[in-house]
C-alpha cells in the first residue's frame, strides 16, 4: 500500500463511525428486517446505508454493496430477488454525494469521476474510497454477520475496498472506472470514461496532473493486496474491458480468481454471479432465492 492510502486510512481512523440504526418497517418483511444506518466517515462526513438482517438465528453470510456509480442508493441491486435478504445480511452504502448522503455534497452523474481529479489530495474518490472502507468496517461489527462469509460486490470500489479494508472473504468486481483509466479513456466515447475525455478536452494542460491522480486508483496497484476469492466480471469479448484486457489484473490478484466474460445478457451474467456468491457462502439451494424468471 502506498503512502497516499496509508494517509487516507489514518485520517479515516480519526473519526469514529458513531452509527445510528433505525428500523424501516415499510421495507421489512416476514423474512428480513431493514434498517437505515447513518455513520461518519472521513471529512467528517455523515453517510447513509441500508442494512437488512434475515429473520432467525444467525450468524448469516453477508453481502456488502459499496457505493455505486449512480445517484440512487438501492437496498439490493435492481432485479435481485427480495428473498436474497432472507439468507444474507445485506448492507448497501451511499458514498458521499449519492442520494441520502448528498448533504452537504451532491454529486452529479456524469461529473463525479472528474470532481477534483487534478489533485489527488482533494479528489472526491479519496473520500468515497474511505466511505466504502468505513462501510465494511461497520458491517463487520454486526453480531448477525458470519465473518467467514463476507462478499463485497460492486464495481472497482469493491476491489479497492477489499484491498484496503480487512474482512472480505469474497469479491465480485466489475471494473468500469479505475483500470488503466488514462490509457483506456481515449479509446472510448462512452460514459463514464468519456468524463475523462471531456475534462481533458476542456483542460488539456491538466493531463499530467490527472494521470498522477488516477495512478493512485489503478486496480493493478490494489490487486496484490486482495487475498479473497475474486470473481472478475469482464466485458463481452472485444469490448474495452474484456477478459484479455483484464488479464494483467487477474494475474496480479493474490487470491483465487475466476474471470467471467459478459454474455451481454443480464440474465446469464446475473445468474452466474448469484450462483458464485452462493457457492462461496455455502448456500446450496440458490434456486430458492433467485428471481422467479431465472428459476429452472
Amino acid at each position, binding site marked *: 500500500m502506498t503512502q497516499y492510502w496509508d494517509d487516507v486510512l489514518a485520517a479515516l481512523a480519526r473519526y469514529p463511525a458513531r452509527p445510528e440504526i433505525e428500523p424501516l418497517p415499510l421495507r421489512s418483511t416476514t423474512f428480513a428486517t431493514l434498517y437505515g444506518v447513518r455513520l461518519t466517515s472521513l471529512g467528517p462526513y455523515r453517510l447513509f446505508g441500508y442494512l437488512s438482517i434475515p429473520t432467525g438465528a444467525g450468524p448469516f453470510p453477508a453481502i456488502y454493496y459499496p457505493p455505486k456509480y449512480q445517484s440512487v442508493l438501492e*437496498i439490493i441491486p435492481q*432485479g435481485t430477488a427480495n428473498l436474497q435478504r432472507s439468507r444474507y445480511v445485506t448492507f448497501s452504502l451511499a458514498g458521499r454525494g449519492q442520494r441520502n448522503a448528498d448533504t452537504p455534497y451532491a454529486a452529479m452523474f456524469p461529473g463525479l469521476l472528474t470532481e477534483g481529479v487534478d489533485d489527488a489530495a482533494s479528489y472526491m474518490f479519496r473520500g468515497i474510497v474511505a466511505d466504502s472502507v468505513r462501510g465494511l468496517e461497520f458491517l463487520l461489527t454486526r453480531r448477525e454477520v458470519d465473518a467467514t462469509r463476507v462478499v463485497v460486490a460492486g464495481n472497482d470500489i469493491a476491489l479497492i475496498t477489499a484491498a484496503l479494508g480487512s474482512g472480505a472473504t469474497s469479491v465480485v468486481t466489475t471494473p468500469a472506472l479505475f483500470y488503466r483509466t488514462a490509457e483506456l479513456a481515449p479509446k472510448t466515447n462512452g460514459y463514464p470514461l468519456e468524463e475523462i475525455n471531456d475534462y481533458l478536452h476542456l483542460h488539456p494542460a491538466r493531463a499530467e496532473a490527472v494521470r498522477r491522480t488516477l495512478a493512485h486508483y489503478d486496480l493493478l496497484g490494489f490487486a496484490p493486496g486482495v487475498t479473497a476469492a475474486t470473481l472478475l466480471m469482464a466485458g463481452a469479448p472485444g469490448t474495452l474491458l474484456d477478459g484479455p484486457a483484464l488479464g494483467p489484473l487477474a494475474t496480479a490478484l493474490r487470491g483465487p480468481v475466476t474471470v467471467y466474460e459478459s454474455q*451481454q445478457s443480464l*440474465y446469464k451474467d446475473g445468474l452466474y454471479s448469484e450462483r458464485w456468491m452462493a457457492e462461496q457462502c455455502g448456500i446450496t439451494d440458490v434456486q430458492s432465492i433467485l428471481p422467479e*424468471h431465472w428459476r429452472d
Partner: protein
Amino acid sequence: MPKARPADYRSKIRKPDDFDAFWSDVLRQASTVPLEPEVVPDPLRTSDDVEVFQVFYTSIDHVRIAAWYCRPVRRAARTPAVMVLPGYQMDPPIPKEWARKGYVALSVAPRGKLRSNRQFNPGYPNLLTHNIVDRHTYAYRGFYVDTWRGIDFLLARPEVEPTLLGVTGSSQGGGLTITTAAMRPEVRAASAGAPYLCGFADAIELTHTYPYEEINDYVRRHPERRADVEQTIAYFDGINFADRISCPIIMNIGLQDNVCPPETGYVLFDRIGAADKRLYPYDGHGHDAGRARHGAVTDAFFARHLPGREVSP
C-alpha cells in the same frame, strides 16, 4: 434454462371508464403552464463532433425540468430528432451517441431525477408509491407530463424537423416511450425496450424484485389502502395508453426479465393500436432485453422512419 413464459398470459389490467377524461384534464392543466425553455451551452461536455447543452423547461405544477440536448455539429438545416427517456434508477445520459448517428437528441430528466429534484424529490425507493392512493397527485402524473413536454421543446427548436420526431428508451424509458407515443401524435416512430410501468398489477404478482416490489412493500404495510392503490395505478398503466398509439413502433423484451416480466410485455404489445408494430422477444435475456443485438434493429428502424439526417464522420 427457465421454463418459457406464456405469451397468452391473462392480464388483469382494465382501463377505467374515465381514463381519457382524466388525462384530458391533466393536459388541460399542463397547457396553462408556459414552457419557458432555457438552453445553456455546456463546453465541458461538447466535443468536436457534438454540441451539448443543458436544457430547462417548465412542466405541470410549475416544476422546472432539466434535460441534456445534443446536436451534431454537421447537420442539415432541419434535422430529425429523437427523445431519449430514462430508466427508473439511472441518471439520464448525455445522448451524444444519438447525435453521432445524425439526430438531434433530447434526454429528459423528469421530476425527481438529478437536476430536476429541487421542487420534487420523493427519492428512490419511494417514487413508485409517492401519493399512490390519489391519481390526482400520484408522482407519475407530473412525471409523464414532463416527458410529453419534451416534445414541445423539440417542436420549438429551429434546427429540428418537426415531422420527424422519434422516442426511445428502455425499462422505465420503455414505459415512457409508450405513454409519449400514445399522447403525442407528433411522434412518428417509437422504440420501447423492456417496458416498465406497463402491467403494474400483474407485475407485482409475477415478480418480487425492486422497483415493482415497492408497491408490495406499501400494500403489505397499508393493506387497507389496496383498493385505492389499484384504482390509481390503472390510470398510469402503459397498457391502458397503448391503444392510442398510431405511429410505427418496435418493442424488445427479454424472456428471462426479472424486473419487467415478459408476460406484461406480451399483453402490452397486443394492446398497441398501431398497424405497423413488431415485437422482438429475446430468449436467454433478462432486463437487457437483448440490447446488444437489438441496437442494430433500432438504428435501422429510426433510419427508415426518420430520414434526412447527416451522420457525423
